[in-house]
């Protein structure tokens, strides 16, 4: 670590001799201390999940939501410094509104990710501000229907919206993750926070990208998301946590294009599945431990 004591890591926007902005890297540390968040993009929708570590028994259960809605069809979950995350969500909502003011249509997930990436990056250019202490996962379902523009009246010519290539499908589920540096990529499965490694390992096992039979449906994705959060919780298993999950489906799916919390019944079912699955892993660990005693705790 050539950073500490050399003075290059004291201020934002300063490059160290080996070309690194240490304040951004320290910001990433703040993210890695935070509880885990994941996002899953399957063929018919998006699931976002957050492991909310319970810092005090006095907290009101189920009252402190971490996963935020932007416009109607986008969800954002983040790990790291919670107030920074709320600032990020407020800005995302302003961007979505600015888009509607300008284009009279809901913003696409790609454009929101691009704008939010730019916003986060701006905070790495000046010493007058510090980078965001969060990594944010942005999930959205861009409408696949031919929706009229906002405020449109009358039915217009019966020939329909001109200029569209016939038969081309547009819209669908999209998932992005933005880091403190402003860098963002599109994902099928994304994870951040303390348990991100374990979560990523589990996400890679799922079939998210092929459109074939085996690829995950939305309900299955909800169950897998719960399981993966339980697995990821292993990294700070001394503390209790509250699982929060939201999802977005297409117009004919359960949420009709809107980002909303997974209904309680489904969430409970997913948690039972998660407990059953993670409990089984623990048993397997015991068996191997008893028989061969090779696995060191």
């Amino acid at each position, binding site marked *: 670590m050539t950073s500490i004591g050399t003075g290059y890591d004291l201020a934002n926007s300063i490059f160290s001799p080996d070309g690194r902005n240490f304040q951004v890297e320290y910001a990433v540390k703040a993210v890695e201390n935070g509880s885990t968040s994941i996002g899953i993009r399957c063929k018919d929708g998006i699931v976002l999940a957050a492991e909310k570590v319970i810092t005090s028994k006095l907290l009101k259960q189920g009252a402190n*939501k971490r996963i*935020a*809605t932007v*416009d*109607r069809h986008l969800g954002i979950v983040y790990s790291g410094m919670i107030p920074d995350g709320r600032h990020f969500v407020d800005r995302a*909502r302003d961007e979505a*509104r600015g888009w*509607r*003011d300008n284009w*009279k249509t809901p913003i696409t997930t790609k454009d929101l990710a691009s704008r939010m990436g730019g916003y986060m990056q*701006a905070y790495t*250019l*000046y*010493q*007058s*501000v510090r980078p965001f202490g969060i990594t944010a996962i942005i999930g959205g379902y861009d409408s696949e229907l031919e929706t009229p523009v*906002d*405020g*449109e*009246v*009358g*039915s217009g010519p019966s020939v329909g919206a001109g200029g569209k290539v016939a038969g081309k499908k547009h819209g669908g589920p999209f998932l992005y993750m933005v880091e403190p540096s402003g860098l963002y990529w599109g994902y099928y499965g994304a994870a951040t926070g303390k348990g991100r490694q374990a979560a990523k390992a589990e996400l890679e096992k799922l079939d998210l990208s092929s459109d074939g039979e085996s690829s995950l449906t939305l309900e299955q994705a909800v169950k897998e998301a719960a399981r993966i959060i339980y697995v990821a919780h292993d990294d700070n298993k001394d503390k209790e946590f509250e699982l929060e999950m939201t999802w977005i489906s297409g117009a004919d799916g359960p949420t009709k294009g809107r980002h*909303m*919390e997974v209904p309680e019944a489904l969430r409970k079912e997913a948690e039972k599945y998660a407990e059953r699955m993670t409990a089984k892993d623990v048993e397997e660990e015991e068996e191997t431990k008893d028989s061969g005693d090779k696995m060191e705790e």
Partner: protein
Amino acid sequence: MDHRPQAWGRPRDDVYGAYDHSYFQNTGPRQATQAPIVTGTSVIAIKYKDGVVMAADNLASYGSLARFPDVKRLRVFLDSSVIGFSGDVSDMQFLDRHLTELSIDEAYEDPSSDNKGHLNAANLHKYLQKFLYKRRNDFDPLWNQLLIAGFDGDAKPYLASVDLRGTSFTSPSLATGFGSALAQPIMRRYAATEEDAAKLTREQAVEVVKECMKVLYYRDARSLDRYSIAVVTKEGVELKEDEQLEKQSWAFAERIKGYGTQTV
């Protein structure tokens, strides 16, 4: 290095030279005050025992030309209130977009899906009244008169009006434009006072409103025989947008000079 955030993303003065403000025309008269171009005619509404009935025809006129015959002038807000627009249609569209953004912001504040605590009709009316009053103060009015129907904080039926100057009022029955002259006297026979309105059944209220729509079609030269009708109850809003005016009888017109064969 200009650290101020508002300077971010702007071409640098030291490279491109100071910004030439002459592009902004800040002298000369303000051109904002406008006049209504494409307009919607009356909106009428009446309170009854369990809610409010509101109706408006589907016409947007361009002066005396019946230019757009299927413009829906009743808008549902958060599944709990209805707003009826008369006056300028472009301002109606602007307000419609603004209400969409208002309902999105309202949903942010209350993520629980029990949508208790959302804006009710009384809140919406106060908001719209302030909004239109502000535009009036800037001499850039939204050239409309709106009726807002729904429920107030005590879950009682609520019906109110607000216009381009920000003037607002409530009454057991309301009507805008021609309706205030033609439909109100008819509706006031059934809902003269809040108590009378509270005795009306849903069927009676709908019947009175349909009757008034017919009278307006007879007498308002900018009206249409296809209309939308909404009934707001505690359960939500039932909106029908393609109603056809029935049981018309133009017999009375025989006596009007210039109609048909009569020349005297």
